[in-house]
């Protein structure tokens, strides 16, 4: 084998060529970046709407998802995928996902324990807020409307495995959901207890209860209860599973 011999000038030239080649290779193939392989990184797709780590604010429309019961989150993700809850954006995102992955996503956001910001100052009249408080805490037995607290917990922070807390949500979001239940564009597993309750509420009821809920501070360290207070006032197809 012939080994080329370089003089000192030749050696420098060879070194320069080698350097140039290395630089070229680097330009053609940028150093491969990596990002951490974590659920937080995989779920970056959720953050522009639901906030960093799924902690969106109580103003606007989009709900906070951090700390919601895992079962509730998984039910919603499946409902978006399978069409019993409607949001074009959410449906497109979860359309081609397996049950397993949706469960992992639900578990991830449920496990986040992040502080809640203080509630916005309500702009509604006191009468509206009082009507909302009445409905939320006492219900309306005359119309067979149970209090929110009967299922969603005395502190309204929800219960495992699948009953969501109702605090820290934008009023417009709660109004949107109750409206969707009334019109049937949001449905839960049968018997759909929330659908039934929503249909017993007037538009004014919905508004009152939503603005009152949105005006409530979230108690520090609030977590969903370990289990709901059984029996529930209505039979529910989801919420308890």
């Amino acid at each position, binding site marked *: 084998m012939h080994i080329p011999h370089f003089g000192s000038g030749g050696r420098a030239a060879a070194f320069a060529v080698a350097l140039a080649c290395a630089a070229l290779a680097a330009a053609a193939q940028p*150093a491969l*970046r990596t990002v951490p*392989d974590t659920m937080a990184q995989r779920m970056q797709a959720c*953050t522009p*709407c639901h906030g960093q780590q799924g902690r969106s604010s109580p103003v606007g429309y989009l709900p906070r998802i951090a700390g919601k019961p895992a079962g509730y989150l998984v039910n919603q993700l499946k409902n978006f995928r399978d069409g019993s809850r409607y949001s074009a954006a959410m449906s497109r995102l979860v359309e*081609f*996902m397996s049950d397993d992955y949706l469960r992992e996503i639900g578990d991830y956001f449920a496990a986040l324990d992040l502080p809640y910001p203080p509630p916005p100052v309500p702009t509604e009249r006191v009468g509206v807020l009082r009507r909302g408080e009445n409905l939320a805490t006492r219900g309306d037995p005359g119309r067979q409307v149970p209090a929110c607290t009967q299922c969603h917990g005395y502190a309204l922070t929800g219960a495992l495995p699948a009953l969501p807390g109702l605090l820290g949500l934008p009023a417009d979001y709660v109004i949107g959901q109750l409206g969707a239940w009334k019109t049937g564009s949001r449905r839960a597993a049968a018997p759909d207890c929330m659908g039934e309750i929503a249909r017993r509420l007037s538009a004014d009821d919905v508004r009152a209860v939503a603005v009152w809920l949105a005006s409530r501070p979230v108690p520090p360290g609030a977590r969903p209860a370990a289990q709901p207070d059984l029996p529930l006032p209505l039979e529910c197809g989801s919420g308890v599973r």
Partner: protein
Amino acid sequence: MKRWLPHAVLLAVCALAVIALLAALNLRDESPIGDARPSAASAEQVQRGAYLARAGNCLACHTIRGGAPYAGGRAIETPFGTVHGSNITPDAKTGIGSWSADHFWRAMHNGRSKDGRLLVPAFPYPNFTLITREDSDALFAYLRTLPAVERPNREHALRFPYSTQAALAVWRALYFRPGVYEADRARSGEWNRGAYLVGGLGHCSACHGGPTVFGPARGSLEMSGGVSPIDKWYAPSLTSRAEASVADWETGQIVELLQTGVSARGSALGPMAEVVYRSTQFLSDADLRAMAGFLKTLPPSSAAVQRSAPIGAVDPEILERGRTLYRKACEDCHGPRGEGARGAYPALAGNRTVVMNPPSNVIRAVLSGGFLPATRGNPRPWGMPPFGHVLDDAEVAAVITFIRNEWGNSAGGVSSVEVQRMR
């Protein structure tokens, strides 16, 4: 004798001749319908049929979101109106329970329903006509094993004249020629198997071949790109190197894309994610290799060159605005030099989807985001956020203009109007 009479007679004769010709052309290659009830299918045949149903992705159009499988109802937007997938469960009243294998064959091979109606080619029988009688029978045998679901079909909502049987008859006479796939003797068995799957059940040309519903004649193996019926995605040309040609991919990379939804060379988003999720991930390695091998040999075209508008100068102010937005919203994932992140986020530098014309897909990706399909090979896909809620049309246009003209990309700008059209 009245003077007009000979003219009228002549006219009537001509009209009759045209009708007879149309009828004859529409009934080409039809087999007689026997009245024999379907003979008992073997378990093997049913299993084969189930596999073929995956290969044809029958589920996608014949199932409404969250509905009973194969019971129909999905609305498919076409340039000519909306068509609705039909119920193909064995329900006698609303499905195909009263059909025989002959009826099913006539639908697949000739595009005619049991009641004799001409079918709308959104049901891609110009592709399905390529499949063998044996495969058609296996599919039918499988469909007969599904639970019968009573769900009445929804009428199509096509505009006049596309809604008429007469229009269909004319289109079929001009452009539809029934015929089982004929092997190219000069090619290998594997190549022919690939062509059979891609052109037949796979019906890739239904999207990648353009909007063919009443369009001009296009072969079932013609793949020069077209608009997909879903969310205005563009189904890129499989023959153009500038679009989605895989001629220079390794066979394994093509197989990987079809099997897992992601590969070193590209990934499946939007309607292609659905194809991978519901169909190709379930195909055998041998079939995927055959398809890949065939796709690699598609003759190259210069579709992109013809389609792209001349690239004008890009407003530096818009570029700067796009750069600022990129740093804020995109850089964390796609990198400061558009290089992407290994195994997670695609590079934007040199990315064909980013620089493609039309820019529909990059606009759709920014507006709607999305996850790759969750498959056995990629069960926990990475995702892209939808920015449609967060950025307005001008901002989306600016950031896309930036990524189309940075890091060596040079594809011209995108206007707010183009973004608005994709909303």
